[in-house]
């Protein structure tokens, strides 16, 4: 599904942050993470679903997420991802960074000519 005009393209690094956020509430399998991201972003972000997996494996290699095989809600074997302590810490840091950035950008863009 190529990005369309009403779906914003992902900034680099945002997908990782979204994944961390998605599993911060509890372990999820890959498809579950996708649904959670679609849900929390309100379908505003568009990615090819496959792109989720290289990102997951990268996070796993950085030891920000841990995995285990378990049985899914429809009784199939699925791989579940959960946050590690390092992942939780990273999520906190990234969240703060984003909030600062958003606040800064917001005030910058709202600035009126006389304030500049």
């Amino acid at each position, binding site marked *: *599904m190529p990005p369309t005009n009403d779906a914003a393209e992902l900034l680099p690094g945002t997908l990782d942050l979204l994944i961390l956020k998605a599993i911060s509430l509890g372990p999820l*399998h*890959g*498809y579950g993470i*996708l649904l959670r991201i679609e849900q929390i972003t309100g379908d505003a972000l568009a990615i*090819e*679903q*496959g*792109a989720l*997996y*290289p990102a997951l*494996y*990268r996070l*796993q*290699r950085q030891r920000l997420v841990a995995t285990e095989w378990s049985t*899914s809600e*429809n009784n*199939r*074997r*699925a*791989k579940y991802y959960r946050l590690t302590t390092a992942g939780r810490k990273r999520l906190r840091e990234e969240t703060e960074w984003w909030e600062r950035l958003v606040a800064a950008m917001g005030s910058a863009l709202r600035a009126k000519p006389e304030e500049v």
Partner: protein
Amino acid sequence: MWRLFRRQRFERDMDEELAFHLQSRIDDHLRRGLSRTDAERRARLEFGGVDKYKEQIRDARPFALVDDLARDLTYAWRSLRRTPVFATTAIVAIALGVAVNAGLVTLVYALVLRPLPVKDPGTIRNVFMSTRGGGSRGTYGTPYFVSFAEFAFMRSQSRTADLAAVAEASLSCTCAAGGQLRAQLVSDNLLPLIGARPALGRFFTPDETKTPGSAPLVVLAWATWQQQFGAAQDVVGRTVNLNRTPFTIVGVADADTTGPLITKPDVWLPYTMQAITRPGGMLIDEPTFGWIQILARRRPGVSDSAMRAELSVLGQQSLLPHNPDRTATVTVSPGAFLNYPMIMQNGAPVMAIAFLAVSLVLLIACANVANMLLARGLGRRREIAIRVSMGAGRARLLRQFLTESAVIGVLGGGVGLLLSQGAARLVLRAVPATMMGGHQLDLSPDWRIVFYTLAVSLATSLFFGSVPALRLVRSDLTPALKAAHRNWLLSGRRIPLQSALVAGQAAITVVLLVNAGLLVRGFDRALRMDHGQSARNVLIASFNLQQEQYSGEQAGRFLMELREVIAGTAGVAGVSMTVNDPFVSGCGMRAWTIGADGQPSEPFQIACEQAGPDFFKTMHIAVLRGRGFTGDEVRRAARVAVVDERFARTRFEHVDPVGRFVRLGTRPEDVREIVGVAATTAELTVDRRMRPKVYTPISGFLEGKLLIAHDGRTDAVVGTLRARVAEVDPNVNVSIKSIEQNVRFALAPIRIAAAAAAALGLMGLVLACSGLYGVVAFSVSRRLREIGIRVALGANRTDLLRMIVGQGLRPVAAGSAIGLLLAAGGGHLIRVLLFGVSPIDPITFTATVLALLAAAALAAIVPALTALRLDPMVALRDE
């Protein structure tokens, strides 16, 4: 095995995880009421290219690098196995290039860098001391040797290192098969210092090496004990005569001990017995005469700089009693055979040139491999394009190409390492035995050489592999996928990179061949030029009068009498005497001319030569003015001299020197009257300096040699000589050689250089031509269709042949032009070896380029002919 298992499991898990995702999505779509076909199509579309993401996941997984490397290696190995001709050619090319390079490094390493063959070589140091300034000082051997007194002082004072003395001497012994033994004169601590242990008996005690002449004792080397004494257990205590002096054998060294010098000794003597190696004990009693080399064992906890600092001070102090006006320079270097500061300095430029030459061959080889890789890669464009479109990242592909290059490099390096051993031994064998006889050079590769070789081959193969690899991976690959464009070369579009590589090879080959040609011509010139003296039909006879304890007077009588006997033999045109070995050894000193007012001139350097009666006649040196020496003048050591024409011209210009005076020393009695002017003679040694020459009546009879000019009938001369010597003194050993041997010896360095350069040049030529062959063959095979069409349309085959060969030769011609310019520069570097042949000798330059073009034409014609011989219909149908 474990890795394979892990890898399979990883793939299974990945597949299962992705399948789960797709299945869940399909289920969701089905629940929303889509048909099964639509649901599946939709899910797949949303997911994107499964293979692409799988590839990305593989790259992202842990252990990716290790696993990929293993996979790349297997892939590279298989793909090389599939193309054995390419693989072999590439590996051989790299191996040849690496072999000459590593061969040179092996030689240099063995000569000047390799740790000495002694126990714990890491803390062994060579200590060299050179001195500068006023006051007289003599050295025997290198200028870095110290006198007995200086060594004794430094050894007793040093706190940073244990100092030991070693010097070399040649001895006569009735015990030896050839009558001659190589001896090392050592201080008592030398053998223990290098970790030697007595296999029998003992070594020397400190008391035995204190007083000159007090302890005629000898320690045998293991090999001497085995070969000359039949490994007799009771050898200790026996007496042997060395230089007519009885010595008692006190011990035998263990088999591993071969001494700290480049030549293995047969025996060790206390260095205080030096006097018997030269009559009169002239070296050991002389406090300003250096003849001892210092070997040091650095003490624990001491740094090299601390050692150098201390020994510099001690060296300076050691000069105070007898050489107070001289300044000492002390060098401390890790123990090795030939690491004298002078050799390191003078040898460096020679080594740089040699290294440049071998690196050029390596460069040609690498260009060859790069070209082959490029051609092969172009042939694989379809495969590459398919793999890229299937999701293989370009970085991944690049890594795979480089792995292939690395495999070629390592294999080539391994073969090259083996070949380099042969190359180094071949060069060493070309060195005359008199220069390096009995050496104990260890050419076997140690880890440093192995590391160097593999590093060089890996680095070059990776660098030269990256050029074509980058080009292939970067290029637009879509045309390669379309079969219609398979003949993308049809338009005759050239591949500049390939041509550039061929041109580069041609240029380097020209440089190597031209310099080889110049050296060969220089060698030829040196052989045929007018030497100003006989270079043939002269025999040189030398005697071991010193070893037989002759006095100078006795030696003089012996030689003068022998001379008269030989002069009467049939076939002899003249007999004389000299001290220097003609063309091989020389003598230099300072001289002053005495002006008409009796005042001496400024001192200048001259070459000195001692001459017997009839010297100029015997050696065919023209006497231009005045006369040579008479027998009477030689006998009474008359204060006369003959100068050469260069001397006359530079010192007296237009004035006749005959009757004028020259002073060869600082004392009044060193003044000599000039009685004649002789023609200037040519020098052949590489380090020849064109100094004016002064001949004096021979006085050093102990080292005197008989020169015998003959008309080719040497048998009678040699017979008479040997018989007469045996009659006079059966103990005297006579060795006879021809002056032609001396000429060959003097020219050995240039002969070796010419042979090595020729070998390198031919190697370059073969590599460059095989490279050109490959390029032409490749381009022809790509253009078969075009050629087929042209032939079918009635094109003249001869014209086509001319076109193909011409296109192939164009880069060769361009490269040759560049090569000629570079070669002109190279010729200047080796000017000293050319004996007057111009460094831009037109004959050499023209011949080289013609030879290269001819060889290149041949290399291009073969594949071109093969292509033209094909039935055009076959070529067309093939598409």
